[in-house]
C-alpha cells in the first residue's frame, strides 16, 4: 500500500482528484480530502488500485508524489517501537523510562544494561536469594581501590512502597551520569564505594504486581501459620521481639520467629559484616516525608544524637530546596513510633554511625499509590538529601 500526494493546481486537476472519490471499487482512503486549489490531497491506495489510480492521474497530466512508499513497513516499525518504548525493551539506560513504574524483570534488565554500559564503574553482586529463590542483587559503584570505605543505600524493603524502588533506579543512573560528567557524586567516588540494593524484597515486589498491591512483608511461611510474610524492618537484631513489633504472623509488623530469619535481611547482615568498612547506611521507605535516625526500639538517645540531628537538618534543607517538599526529622521513636528490630538500629549498633531512614513522598493524599509523574521529582530531591549525608561521611571519616 502507498500514500500518494496530489496538490491540484487547476480546477481540471481538482476535478480529476474528486472523481477518484466516487470510484468505490478502488477502496481509496483519503487521509486528506480535496479542499481546494493548492491544498494537498493525501490518498492511501491499496496495492491492487495503485496501477489504475496512477494511470488515471498521469493520463490527465496530474502530477503526484509518493508520500509513503510502503505503509505496512511503517506500521511494522511503529509496532516494534511501541513495544519497545511502552513496556518491553528499552535498548539502553538512556531510553529507559524513569517516569514510570517498572516490573521486576525490567528493573533487573536495567541493572544489566547499566553494568554493560559502564563496566569500569558498575558491577552487580548477588548477595543471596529470597525465600522464593529470587536473586538479591546489589549494584557496586567503585572507581577502584580495595575495600574502600563505603556507603550503602537500599530501596524497596517494603514492597508496596513503589516510589522507593523507582527512585533507586534513578539513583543508579544518576551516579553513572555524575561520574561521566565529573560532578556531584563523582568526588565521593574518588575515595568511597557506593552499594545500592534497588529491590531489597523481590518476592514482595512481585506479589504487589501480580496479586496484592498493598503487600508489605516478605513472602516466607513460618511456624505453620496460615499467614505469610515477615516485616523485614522488624527482623533485625536490635531490640528484636520487644515492644514495637508484633508476634502475630498475620500482622503487618510481624517480627518473624527469630532475628535474621528472613534471607532478605540475613544477606545484608552477612554482607555488612564481611565488608567491614561501611560508613553510612541509608534505608529508604515511603510514605510520610521524614528523615529518621536511630533508635526506634528504645527512648534512650544514641550517643551521636547531636551530630545525626545536625546532618538531618542540613539534608532536609537540601531536599526541600528543590521543590519545597516539607520533611520532618528526628529519631525514629520520637518522630514516627516505637519500632523494634529495625534496620538502622542494627546498623548503628554495628558501628555504622551515619545510619538513616528516609520516608519519601507523600503525606497521605496518594500514600503508597504515588502517581508515576512524581517519581523523578521525588528521586531528584531525595538525592540532594543523600548527597549531604554522603559528603558528611566522606569528610568525617572514622
Amino acid at each position, binding site marked *: 500500500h502507498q500514500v500518494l500526494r496530489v496538490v491540484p493546481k487547476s480546477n481540471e486537476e481538482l476535478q480529476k482528484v474528486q472523481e477518484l472519490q466516487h470510484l468505490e471499487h478502488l477502496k481509496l482512503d483519503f487521509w486528506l480530502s480535496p479542499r481546494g486549489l493548492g491544498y494537498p490531497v493525501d490518498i492511501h491506495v491499496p496495492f491492487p488500485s495503485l496501477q489504475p489510480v496512477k494511470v488515471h492521474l498521469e493520463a490527465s497530466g496530474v502530477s503526484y508524489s509518493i508520500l509513503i512508499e510502503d505503509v505496512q513497513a511503517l506500521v511494522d516499525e511503529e509496532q516494534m517501537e511501541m513495544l519497545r518504548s511502552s513496556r518491553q525493551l528499552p535498548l539502553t539506560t538512556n531510553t529507559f523510562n524513569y517516569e514510570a513504574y517498572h516490573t521486576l524483570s525490567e528493573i533487573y534488565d536495567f541493572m544489566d544494561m547499566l553494568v554493560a554500559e559502564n563496566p569500569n564503574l558498575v558491577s552487580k553482586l548477588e548477595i543471596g536469594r529470597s525465600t522464593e529463590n529470587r536473586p538479591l542483587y546489589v549494584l557496586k559503584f567503585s572507581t577502584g581501590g580495595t575495600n574502600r570505605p563505603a556507603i550503602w543505600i537500599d530501596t524497596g524493603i517494603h514492597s508496596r512502597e513503589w516510589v522507593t524502588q523507582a527512585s533507586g533506579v534513578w539513583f543508579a543512573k544518576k551516579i553513572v551520569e555524575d561520574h561521566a560528567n565529573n560532578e556531584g557524586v563523582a568526588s565521593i567516588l574518588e575515595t568511597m564505594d557506593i552499594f545500592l540494593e534497588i529491590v531489597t524484597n523481590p518476592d514482595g515486589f512481585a506479589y504487589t504486581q501480580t496479586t*496484592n498491591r498493598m503487600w*508489605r512483608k516478605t513472602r516466607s511461611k513460618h511456624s505453620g501459620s496460615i499467614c*505469610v510474610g515477615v516485616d523485614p524492618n522488624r527482623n533485625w537484631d536490635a531490640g528484636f521481639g520487644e515492644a514495637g513489633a508484633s508476634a502475630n504472623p*498475620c500482622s*503487618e509488623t510481624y517480627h518473624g520467629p527469630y532475628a535474621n530469619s528472613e534471607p532478605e535481611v540475613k544477606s545484608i547482615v552477612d554482607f555488612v559484616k564481611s565488608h567491614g568498612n561501611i560508613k553510612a547506611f541509608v534505608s529508604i521507605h515511603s510514605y*510520610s516525608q521524614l528523615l529518621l535516625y536511630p533508635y526506634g526500639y528504645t527512648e534512650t538517645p544514641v550517643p551521636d544524637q547531636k551530630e545525626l540531628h545536625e546532618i538531618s537538618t542540613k539534608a532536609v534543607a537540601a531536599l526541600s530546596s528543590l521543590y519545597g517538599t516539607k520533611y520532618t526529622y528526628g529519631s525514629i521513636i520520637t518522630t514516627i513510633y516505637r519500632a523494634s528490630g529495625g534496620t538502622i538500629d542494627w546498623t548503628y549498633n554495628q558501628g555504622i554511625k551515619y545510619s538513616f531512614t528516609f520516608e519519601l513522598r507523600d503525606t497521605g493524599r496518594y500514600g503508597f499509590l504515588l502517581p*508515576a509523574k*512524581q517519581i523523578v521529582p521525588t528521586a531528584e530531591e531525595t538525592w540532594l538529601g543523600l548527597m549531604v549525608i554522603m559528603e558528611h561521611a566522606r569528610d568525617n571519616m572514622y
Partner: protein
Amino acid sequence: AVAVGYVRYRRGGPGRGLELRALRRARRQDIDDVGHKYYLELELGDVLDKDRTVNCTAEVLYHLGHKNTAPEVQFSVEGELRSTEEADEEFYNRIRSLEKELVAENIPDSHGNIPQELEPIHLLAWVASGYLIWQNSTENTHFHLAQIKHVKQVKRSDEDLQFDYVVLLHEMVSQEVIPWEVAVLWHPRRGLRVSRDRRQPGHTPG
C-alpha cells in the same frame, strides 16, 4: 489526623479535598476522670487550590475508657475556601444524567493514576474517609485513605446521589491496610452523609 478527618468530613466535597498543610501548635491537657484533650492550631488547604491555606483551631477530646466511642471534635475555620458550587452542580448533573450506574475500581490504580472524570468520586471517598477516621481513631492510631477498591453508584428516587464504596484504610502504627464498606449520600446543598459503614469481615492472611 482525627481533627483533619473531621473537618474534611464536615467541609469537604467532590470538589474540595482538605488536607493538612502544617501543624502550627499542639497541646495536650489531661482532664481527671474525663480523658485527654488536645488543642490544635492547623493550617489546612484544598488539594485543588494549592495557593490558598486557611487556619483552623480544633479541640479533640478522647474520652477515658470509652474505647468504642468516637473522640469529640470542635473546630473553627478562619478564612475562605475556594467555592465549589459550580463544580458540585456540574458533578451532580453529570452523575444524575448517567444512563447506567457508575461502577469503578482501584482508584488510584497501582501507578497512582486517577482518570480525570473520576477525581470527584475520589474526593468524595476522601471526605467519607474523614468520617471513618474520626469515628475509629484512638490516640494511638493514624489513618489514611489508601485506595478505593470498588465504588458503585446506587440510583435513588429522591434527590441524593448514593455511592457504595469499599475503601482501604491504611493505619500507620500497625501498618495494616483495612477494607471498609461505606455507603455515602451526597447532595450539592445538603453535603455528605454516611448512611452506613462497616469494617469488611474476613482477613486475608496472604
